[in-house]
């Protein structure tokens, strides 16, 4: 299995890994009303928004102000650059041995929804730029170019499990010898499209979300980006770089039950968690912390809770949903939560599941309620998506 030598994250609770970590320890969430999206719901539905405008992000990243950027590209470049610097990838000579694999649900939707009505009126050049940026792939190519990464690049779009699947793709590329280093993770921007989409499904909370609480009514939509740097043992040793941990196992399965809902018993989730542990060669009892998918919807938390009880045979380890801090960042969540998992291992800490009061009646599971310092050797991280896409990753020391 591959090593991890860098992490990068941007979310509603911080613009970099250090500030995300600080918020996690201070139990400070990033949920509030949007500053940047012009929607009917802007003072009704709280979201997890990254606290920088596009103009501020362009400045921060020293990008050419004359170009048009989707928020997706900006958030991706921000978090990927951090992971890149963390792993000192600037010193790698053969750029073709570094791959870039990213996940996203809606790509450059933030641009498309603003401009698509006016496409017919646009001049050709603007049209090409804006429309091209709608594609999921565009942020991947932009970030790869910004970091001068010349290996294989591709984009995964499996809704909320996109980033986690990008990490699996990256690990396999290294195993097959097709890359030495892979920057892998994902990104999603807040958009009118997704806010209205999730609202039409009636799964958004008008209050900060309460994952795994009996009174939960829905999720808070959010945005962000998170990446890890995966690296082969040989490359890591050659570069003399200290690892942050290892990707010990992973599995991608499908619930194949319903287009948006999870099966009540969490069939796909059970398969994903147990196969990931099996590939890692780890007994469920060796897991110290589970960073659950925990969206805060009625359906997910019940289904995931049942799956946890099945996989851990009733003895569920310490677990929490950090979506109670960040909101649900969709395709980015697997990347951001991978970074949180590695922080948990390196700092020996588990994070609370904010706003939990009463356990779900049929479940009786109590998530982690305070910051707790303890030895964390193995973390299981879940990303379950819309469309039945279930992915679990196992990180170790």
């Amino acid at each position: 299995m591959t090593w991890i030598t860098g992490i990068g994250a941007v979310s509603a609770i911080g613009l970099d890994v250090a500030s995300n970590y600080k918020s996690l320890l201070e139990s400070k969430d990033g949920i509030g009303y949007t500053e940047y999206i012009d929607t009917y719901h802007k003072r009704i539905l709280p979201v997890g928004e990254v606290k920088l405008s596009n103009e501020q992000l362009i400045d921060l990243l020293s990008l050419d102000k004359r170009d048009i950027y989707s928020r997706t590209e900006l958030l991706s470049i921000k978090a990927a650059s951090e992971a890149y610097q963390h792993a000192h990838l600037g010193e790698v000579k053969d750029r073709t041995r570094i791959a870039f694999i990213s996940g996203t649900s809606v790509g450059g939707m933030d641009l498309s929804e603003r401009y698509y009505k006016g496409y017919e009126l646009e001049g050709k050049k603007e049209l090409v730029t804006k429309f091209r940026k709608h594609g999921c792939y565009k942020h991947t190519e932009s970030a790869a170019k910004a970091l001068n990464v010349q290996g294989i690049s591709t984009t995964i779009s499996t809704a909320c499990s996109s980033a986690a699947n990008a990490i699996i793709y990256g690990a396999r590329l290294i195993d097959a010898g097709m890359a030495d280093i892979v920057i892998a993770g994902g990104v999603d921007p807040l958009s009118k499209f997704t806010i209205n989409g999730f609202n039409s499904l009636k799964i958004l909370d008008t209050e900060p979300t309460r994952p795994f609480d009996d009174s939960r009514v829905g999720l808070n939509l959010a945005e962000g980006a998170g990446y890890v740097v995966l690296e082969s043992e040989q490359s890591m040793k050659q570069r003399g770089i200290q690892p942050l941990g290892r990707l010990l196992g992973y599995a991608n399965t499908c619930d194949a039950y319903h287009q948006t809902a999870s099966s009540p018993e969490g069939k796909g989730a059970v398969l994903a968690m147990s196969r990931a542990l099996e590939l890692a060669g780890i007994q469920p009892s060796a897991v110290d912390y589970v960073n659950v998918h925990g969206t805060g919807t009625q359906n997910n938390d019940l289904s995931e809770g049942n799956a946890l009880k099945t996989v851990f045979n009733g003895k569920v380890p310490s677990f929490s949903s950090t979506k109670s801090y960040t909101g649900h960042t969709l395709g980015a969540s697997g990347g951001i939560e991978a970074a949180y998992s590695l922080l948990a291992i390196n700092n020996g800490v588990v994070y609370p599941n904010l706003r939990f009061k009463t356990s779900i009646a049929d479940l009786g599971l109590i998530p982690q309620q305070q910051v707790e310092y303890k030895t964390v050797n193995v973390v299981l991280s879940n990303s379950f998506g819309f469309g039945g896409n279930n992915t679990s990753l196992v990180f170790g020391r």
Partner: protein
Amino acid sequence: MQLQNIYIGSSSCVSIQETFDNPLWFESLKPLTKEPMKVLAPDYKKFLDPTATRRMSKVLKNSLLTARQAMEQQGIAELDAVITATAWGCQEDTTKFLDSFESMGEELLSPTSFIQSTHNTIGGLIAMSVKCNGYNNTISHDFMSFETSLLDAVLLMRENKQAMNCYVGGIDELTDFSAGIFTKAQCFNDAHPVAEAATCFIVHNNEAQKKAVKLSNIALTQSLDQTVLDLIQQNKPDLILSSSVIASDVPVFDYRGLCGEFTTASAFGLYLAVELLTKASAKSAVGVSVAVLKKIAIINVYPEGRCSYLEVEAC
């Protein structure tokens, strides 16, 4: 990467040619027009339950149909993996949902078109229809969507080691809206009309199962560079399927002259390669003049850079 023991068992395709449910489609080729071309829609009622598929867009129906037909031809009732390549995803439902909140405001919206708008809708539906709890991935990377999906299947089988049947589909949808933009923005090479297709393959690693062709090589590079030219030189394909000019002695056939231009056209290229290697009459029908045809390379060059090399051999 040189591949061992990876086969394409069967394939199915809905395209602007009469490829669906017609093994001799190449004997009655449709000429391409200058205008955007949509697929020849199959008689859905004949193959799909009309009630279950009533709210499905054309792209979803075509994907389900081709998946089922490829499985039927392979003689399998189950899949171990569903890997879908789509650059533009479900355009019809995406624009429908965008239009709905633009025209009706943001209250009381119906979720149907949103649910069916995400790129992974296709793979999710296929998995549900055949009850596949296995690997499920959707890749959306413009002109490299299909190649990197095929690579995903290869890497998955390499890791799993046991025998697997993987669905790998290359699917893109053309709507009136996207056709207008593609044309106006000249997103693609002008040589061919913009088009669409749903093409899929059962890719497997089971020597004992039905095999149409062997997938012998897959390479992804930054551009049509020396690595690719070296591969041609070393592997000596009898024919190259490509829309690009390639500096080699090997004859090149532009398959986009049959299927039109779209982001997952290389899936049609692979489909054509399988047809050419398995059906004796296909060669002359499409106008390929190569005496002996045992090995075909499909080379796809991305307008923004990057290049792919796929190679198949007769079994």
